[in-house]
């Protein structure tokens, strides 16, 4: 706490104050000062200042939320309150926790709030996988705008078109952010997640279900409303589950038709199919226009399973992790090449033409 904070409280006392257990009632006969521990009334201004100085945590806490963060209403305010559990713990509990550091996870982000000078909060933001890594072993950042570059590529250097894919790169840290800058950085890493989370907490999340999104599309995407509910469920299973995107899916086919694909576990909601899902849906619609056919293949049981293992390896993104010489893994490159050399042919798998009618 500092003098300026006490001064601000004296000024605010005229209007009355009520924040996190601190009450400064004002009835015209003098100042009141109440916390869960103390209760004064009829104080002179000098006595009021003394009372304030004796409860520094309550005063600096009030000052932080009303003057630094800017008072309730905004998503920013709600998020920063959530970061330190302000609605679940009283001021002394929080200050004790903050002095050691209060941790929260937001997708793959780890946020640690601590106390700075005079009750100001400071925030450390990093990848959850870098929890506990000494700051000097990580790439240090200051400007929230740089978070856009952090979000662009994954650890393998591949472009990340979907910001909430669980592929955020590691190895960086914002060691010392103020509240507003923290929210800005989080919003560059995971755009609109804070605002949509805030709307959901207030019971005001505006969910747009797939049919409505699909019907709105024009141009090359106007066909996406042809996706059947079965295909949509497969699309959500393919693209929207936590292994692919951390947003918690709140949309379904329509209000009456929930999808079976798991919604996800994260704090922040997905309120509408995104542009990537719409683009994928367009491809899935064109795939769905083909009729199935019967093919006859000659494969050993192990080879059949190997084909399935290869599909799984690609679908789970584990191809890169298969060891070079692990010949027991069906998706191993030598195994795949061997299968192709042995069973592939001019007409593909098992030398069975895709369109037999074109081959007499």
């Amino acid at each position, binding site marked *: 706490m500092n003098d300026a904070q006490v001064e601000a409280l004296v000024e605010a006392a005229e209007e009355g104050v009520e924040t996190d257990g601190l009450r400064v009632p004002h009835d015209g006969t003098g100042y009141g000062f109440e916390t869960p521990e103390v209760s004064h009334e009829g104080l002179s201004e000098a006595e009021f200042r003394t009372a304030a100085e004796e409860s520094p945590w309550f005063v600096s806490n009030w000052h932080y939320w009303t003057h630094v963060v800017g008072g309730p209403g905004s998503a920013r305010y709600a998020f920063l309150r959530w970061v330190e559990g302000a609605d679940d713990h009283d001021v002394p509990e929080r200050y004790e926790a903050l002095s050691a550091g209060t941790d929260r996870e937001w997708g793959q982000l780890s946020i640690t709030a601590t106390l700075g000078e005079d009750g100001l909060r400071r925030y450390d933001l990093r990848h959850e996988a870098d929890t506990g890594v000494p700051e000097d072993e990580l790439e240090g950042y200051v400007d929230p*705008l740089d978070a856009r570059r952090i979000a662009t590529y994954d650890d393998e250097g591949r472009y990340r078109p979907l*910001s909430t894919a669980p592929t955020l790169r590691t190895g960086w840290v914002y060691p010392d952010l103020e509240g507003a800058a923290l929210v800005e950085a989080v919003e560059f890493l995971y755009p609109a997640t804070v605002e949509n989370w805030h709307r959901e907490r207030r019971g005001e999340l505006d969910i747009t279900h797939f049919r409505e999104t699909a019907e709105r599309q024009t141009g090359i995407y106007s066909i996406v409303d042809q996706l059947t509910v079965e295909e949509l469920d497969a699309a959500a299973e393919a693209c929207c589950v936590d292994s692919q995107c951390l947003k918690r899916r709140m949309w379904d086919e329509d209000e009456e038709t929930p999808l079976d694909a798991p919604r996800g576990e994260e704090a922040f909601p997905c309120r509408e199919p995104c542009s990537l899902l719409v683009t994928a849906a367009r491809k899935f619609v064109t795939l769905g226009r083909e009729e199935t056919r019967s093919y006859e293949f000659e494969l050993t049981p192990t080879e059949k399973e190997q084909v399935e293992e290869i599909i799984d390896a690609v679908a789970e993104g584990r191809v890169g992790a298969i060891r070079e010489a692990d010949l027991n893994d069906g998706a191993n490159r030598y195994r795949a090449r061997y299968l192709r050399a042995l069973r592939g042919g001019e007409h593909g798998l098992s030398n069975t033409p895709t369109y037999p009618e074109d081959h007499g």
Partner: protein
Amino acid sequence: MQALVIVAHGSHLNPDSSTPTYDHADAIRATGAFDEVREAFWKEEPSFREALRTVEAEEVYVVPLFVSEGYFTEQVIPREMRLEDWDVSDWDSEDGVSASSATYRASDVEKTIHYCGPVGTHEVMSDVIVRRAESVTGDPEVGAGFGLAIVGHGTERNENSAKAIHYHTERIREMGRFDEVEAVFMDEEPEVDDVTEFFSARDIVVVPLFIADGFHTQEDIPEDMGLTDDFREGYPVPGEVDGHRIWYAGAVGTESLMADVVLERAAEAGAEIGDARSRIEERSAPSVAGE
């Protein structure tokens, strides 16, 4: 409080697509003219759909970083941003290059939205094209003895795309600065493939009216003009083709003076920008060739 939201196409495949948008947004942030500046994309995030809720200001200026009036500026952006009662005639642009701004409410936020015409059809864009020519030649006086070709995509999806090209071609021609100024296109006549046929000047500056560098500006156009056989090997600046020297500038949208057009759009819609334009102009003094 006033916010600026710059809306652009973005890409699921090309990480560089959003770079000019970020760069111009950062230049405008640095002027301090707006309480908040936010980028939004069709293919990236925040989406057009959710961009307005990411700013706290009640007055929001939306400037499309697109080259022409058409499908995106007239249909996609207003629809996705939920601009209530949007009607393209509110822009009062019968010739396809005169969109200014119109004011709306959006149905998912309590804000006033000033929806501006695209940067590509603003008159200041002509100056940006000229500035691009200065940048690529490294000559702030470039003009005499030079031809200037402005490259457009063409009519594939939108006839206004050609109108924007012709508009700037005519304006720059009237400046009398370059010996010749011509419009060429990727998918219609006159074609960029034959660019040297349209000029008698030995030196030709070629400026594509595209927002971001990508497949079209870095692969197709250099190969089509014969500047390189294989885009992966790059292209020389200048490069010799049919006895002409081609100074190929890449997408005009990457020119730092573009931020000035964004500001001008917002200011014309009523934004208070103070001396921000002059600060952008100072920042974006011509750079040298090959940068």
